[in-house]
């Protein structure tokens, strides 16, 4: 049985609080740019608007918004980091 192509989405810090969840599996049949994916995120979670300000990491690497998200990827979404 073929599994549905999907991505694992991780939410951190303020983004996790606003979205009300930390992790979810989302169906993704074909590649999509980070910018397009963020637009979809804003529709699903209007409280995150404007989502274009958020940062992305794909498979644990910082990813500019033009990067393509592929089925099977781990996508993390967060505000600018504040460690140190």
């Amino acid at each position, binding site marked *: 049985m073929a599994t549905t192509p999907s991505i694992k989405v991780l939410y951190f810090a303020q983004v996790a609080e606003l979205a009300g969840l930390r992790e979810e599996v989302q169906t993704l049949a074909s590649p999509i740019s980070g910018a397009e994916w963020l637009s979809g995120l804003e529709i699903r979670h209007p409280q995150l608007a404007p989502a274009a300000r958020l940062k992305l*990491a794909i498979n644990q*690497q*910082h990813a500019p918004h033009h990067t393509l998200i592929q089925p099977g990827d781990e996508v993390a979404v967060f505000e600018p*980091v504040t*460690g140190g």
Partner: protein
Amino acid sequence: MVLVQEADFDSAALIAGMRQRTAGKAGALVSFTGYVRDYAENAQTHTLFLEHYPGMCEREIEALCATARERWDVQDCLVVHRVGELHNADQIVFVAVASAHRGDSFRACEFLIDALKTRAPFWKRETLASGDRFWVQQRDEDAEKTGQWAVPRDQA
């Protein structure tokens, strides 16, 4: 070596360990320790909660150490970053670099802490004495500091 942990650390012991590992080779060791301070201008920080992205944090900091080794003559490099609940004046972060000559250690240590602040996925949530809670925002100054370390295109 990169350690992300809830536990506090003993900077003197970490420096002694690095001194031992690089004995005879390193003529210089530079270390930096960061502490919890009052982040808001007119209010005292009560507690600080540090959230992180396990896995990516270690990977990002390892990558920064690799960059430091490429750019400077670094013999040993250590970064310890705490996560979880911290209190005012607690230690948060420790960076140490050993090298033959002091210039490499000074520059690599400053590069590591500057770059860590804008690249390593940690987020600080502050709780004031009043009970108000908020997520600390990245300072423009931190982004500018990291930008200063960018290698000019003709030298890259």
